[in-house]
């Protein structure tokens, strides 16, 4: 990474609002830590409610991310190479879940995969599969909301990839599968990790679509954000403790990936 030596002090009209933005982002985190019930913290975060919700959150968000990667990477490739007719329309459709209020996403999922939904009625009648109010429903809701992050990140990476690497591989006799998994995919590796982390973080924090489509049943569909929300109504200390736990998980992942893959970090 090239670091330019600044020759002049940063202008005040950028420094002042910039510092306001920084304070705005950091003060709530400090507030959370300042109000934390440190005395009972240990027992709060090890309560069955907390551990069950954390376990569920980690499992569903990781499964949702894996699903998003398996089908989202190919979609990103198709978009980048404009292999489908109407690429611009498709790209707009992919972004819709990003813009949609999560509760509305939940409603659309119900309309599609609910027991009387467009697809859901057949799943239920012929296969006996019910998605709403199940753990699978949580994964579905998280994937729906989070996958666009992965697709958009990967599409940019595929698009900016120097095509000559793939051309070189083709002239050397590689099959299209070999070109993809030995050349294309490794070259977009950093973007794949970055997109997956964004996707996973969004899935982990998913609330609106989950509670609408999957409900709030402890042990089945009650993920961390739902548990925090419920705790806030009855036990404020528990809500703060759970929030700190979630924050710690996120920061842990950030630190773990720092300097390796995240965009903006130093790359060799």
């Amino acid at each position, binding site marked *: 990474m090239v670091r330019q030596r600044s020759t002049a002090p940063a202008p005040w009209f950028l420094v002042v609002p910039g510092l306001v933005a920084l304070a705005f982002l950091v003060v709530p985190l400090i507030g959370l830590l300042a109000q934390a019930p440190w005395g009972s913290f240990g027992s709060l975060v090890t309560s069955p409610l907390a551990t069950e919700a954390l376990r569920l959150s980690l499992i569903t968000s990781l499964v949702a991310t894996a699903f998003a990667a398996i089908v989202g990477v190919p979609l990103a490739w198709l978009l980048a190479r404009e292999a489908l007719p109407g690429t611009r329309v498709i790209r707009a459709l992919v972004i819709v879940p990003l813009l949609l209020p999560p509760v509305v996403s939940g409603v659309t999922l119900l309309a599609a995969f609910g027991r009387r939904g467009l697809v859901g009625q057949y799943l239920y009648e012929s296969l006996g599969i019910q998605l709403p109010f199940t753990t699978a429903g949580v994964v579905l809701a998280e994937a729906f909301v989070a996958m666009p992050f992965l697709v958009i990140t990967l599409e940019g990476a595929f698009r900016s990839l120097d095509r000559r690497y793939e*051309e070189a591989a083709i002239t050397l006799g590689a*099959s299209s599968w070999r070109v993809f998994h030995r050349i294309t995919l490794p070259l977009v590796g950093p973007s794949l990790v970055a997109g997956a982390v964004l996707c996973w973080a969004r899935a982990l924090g998913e609330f609106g679509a989950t509670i609408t489509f999957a409900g709030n049943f402890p042990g089945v569909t009650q993920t961390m954000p739902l548990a925090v929300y419920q705790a806030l109504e009855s036990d404020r200390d528990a809500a703060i403790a759970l929030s700190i736990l979630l924050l710690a998980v996120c920061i842990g992942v950030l630190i773990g990936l720092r300097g390796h893959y995240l965009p903006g970090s130093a790359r060799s």
Partner: protein
Amino acid sequence: MTVRVDAEVSRGTFTLAVDATFESGTVTAILGPNGAGKSTLIRAIAGLQAIDRGTVSIDGQVVDDSASLFIPPRERRCGVVFQDYALFPHLNVLDNVAFGPRSRGAANTEAKAVAHLNLARLGIDHLAERRPSTVSGGQAQRVALARALATQPHVLLLDEPMAALDAETRIEIRIELERQLADFAGCALLVTHDPLDAMLLADRVLVIEDGRVVQDGSPAELANRPVTDYVAALMGVTLLRGTASDGVLNLDNGGLLHIADRQLAGRVLAVLRPSSITVHRQPPEGSARNAWPGTVASLQPSHDRVLVMVNGSPSVTAAVTSGAIAELGLSVGTDVWLSVKAVEIDAYPNPTR
């Protein structure tokens, strides 16, 4: 292992139209200015670019007939050295070279053995474990060549293999490349915009301008009888157009020159070499049949000489020593006389018009 191209490739308003055959055991340089369509030609042969009209065949087998048949690149046995080499950045040098054999079905250890062999042949086996980003430009060029040769291609296509190198490395790599090309049994095509590469590496030069082949011949023919201003400029000579009859050449842009060949008639081209033109301050006397006045337009040092561009009828470039510049007191705007012997003018029929 002949490559036959009779094809057109269109891209927007640009069309490349080539009708040429490339024999095995020969090295053909594709020379031309940027955007002339040189790379498009080798991409069409490699199968990285489908043609719009005509056919491309390799070893007598049609690989692209622009309609129903298109053999994909992986089945064409073309080794390509890309501009800037396009070495896979995430694989080390050995795996880069082993990629081709591995892709063509060799076992891992076998592919690596082939890779080591090809690296050793180019004297760079010690770089096997290095990443492409850590080797020099000249080394990267050899790795790219080793990678292309490791699949034992019938056709070797090199796209500006020297463009990324600095002047010193170029000389060294050119010698190396000359040796490698001499060893290569198949048909080799080398895209370049450097006439020196074409002169030293190729048996034949195909000059492409604006998507058309404007000259096709040996390097010597190119140097002695350029047919376009682009080629003449590359060779450092002045190209004049005119009509000849009975030993007199009437130039299109004004002026008249005596030439030695009295049989030559009709539309002709004439080459004036800077070294055969003499510059005087006074109207010259002597055996030179041609003498005409002019004004110095510019002076440009070139190696141990100075190139003097003189406006006149015709306008030409003369090469003089820096001592002569001082002796004659030449500067921009100086009125001079030029002379050239009729036997020094190489005139030949104009093949283009």
